[in-house]
């Protein structure tokens, strides 16, 4: 039994840019790997969000029913949940579709173009249906810490992650919490 931190990262309605920025930790990733085990992440081939996670970084806004389910599972199975990046924190670009109804949105994006359109608001068993409104993560589950930024810079991420590894509260300086 190791006493390494069990770290999970998840990707909801976002562009994966926050995860790219996470990889920009560069050599600090080695330090992180020594202190934490990555137990769930889009950059690792793990299908199920496991039990007993210490810290979960969640990128992206909550845009469809799969996001809701995963968010709830993450909350149940993690000690600390972090809203990771502007989409999770504010809804950011993902929330811009809220000014349209789901049906109008699907018409504009798919039905008016070539190919078959997803059903969107009905469960077809393949593609998760879209929520009527995109929500920031903290409006779906309770969140313990916020790391804003689009994407949050590697330095920002490191400041938050190292605090969590030390078992401290995430309390970022003014210049590390600007949106955008």
């Amino acid at each position, binding site marked *: 039994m190791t006493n390494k931190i069990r770290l999970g990262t998840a990707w909801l309605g976002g562009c994966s840019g926050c995860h790219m920025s996470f990889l920009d930790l560069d050599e600090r990733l080695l330090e992180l790997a020594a202190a934490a085990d990555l137990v769930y992440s889009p950059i690792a081939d793990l299908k199920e969000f496991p039990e007993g996670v210490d810290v979960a970084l969640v990128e992206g806004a909550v845009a469809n029913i799969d996001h809701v389910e995963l968010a709830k599972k993450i909350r149940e199975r993690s000690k600390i949940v972090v809203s990771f990046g502007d989409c999770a*924190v504010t809804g950011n670009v993902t*929330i811009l579709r809220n000014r349209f109804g789901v049906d109008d949105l699907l018409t504009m994006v798919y039905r008016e173009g070539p190919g078959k359109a997803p059903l969107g608001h009905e469960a077809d068993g393949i593609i998760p249906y879209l929520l009527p*409104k995109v929500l920031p993560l*903290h409006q779906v589950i309770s969140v313990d810490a916020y790391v804003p930024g689009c994407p949050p810079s590697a330095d920002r991420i490191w400041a938050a992650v190292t605090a969590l590894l030390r078992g401290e509260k995430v309390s*970022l300086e*003014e210049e590390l*919490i*600007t*949106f*955008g």
Partner: protein
Amino acid sequence: MSVITLTINEQLVSAQSEQTLLEAIREQGVEIPTLCHLEGLSDKGGCRLCMVEAVGTNRLMPACVTKVQEGMNVRTESERLVEYRKMIIELLLSERNHICAVCVMNGHCELQSLAANLGVNHVRYEYVVPDLPMDASHERFVQDQNRCILCVRCVRVCHEVEGAHNWDVMGRGVNSMVIADLYQPWGSSRSCTGCGKCVQVCPTGALSKKGSTVAEMVKHHDFLGWIMNGREKNIWEYR
């Protein structure tokens, strides 16, 4: 002009009797957040960020439109004030579409930097995400209602300094909109002189130079000081 004495954050200070509380506070080097206030323009007490507490009343006072008074005893920082200031910023952020990541003013925006300064790292209110237009009909400038916080610096600078009064406010409450002339495309407004003062004083990305993309817009207010010094004191110094 008489001198009065008042107490700011438990410090006894003196001020000119015609000064505003905000001027007296800033003269002491005490920082206090503002958004609608801009040196050189009239004050309207709109954003409520400069609210202070005064001993003897439970009512908060907007420092920018409150004159100093003999014996006044004010506090510029308290838990209650910080909480209200954060609420104001969060309400502003939730009311329209301030998507910093894709805004021309990203990195230079007064709303964005004030939010960080006040420790706003998320918004507790529901985002309204209104469907608001942009007006790119002007030859050189763009108006984006999505970023507007209705501080009306543009309305004031156009009326008070340029003397053109192109801008006005239409509607009530959450539906208020800054409009050109009698609500027509900015480009067709005959009162606009195209001077660009409104663009320079706008604290957010609501007014910008045409052709600027994300984070490219930087604004300068220095011209206001030069113009006001010239007009009021006949000092024409351009630095």
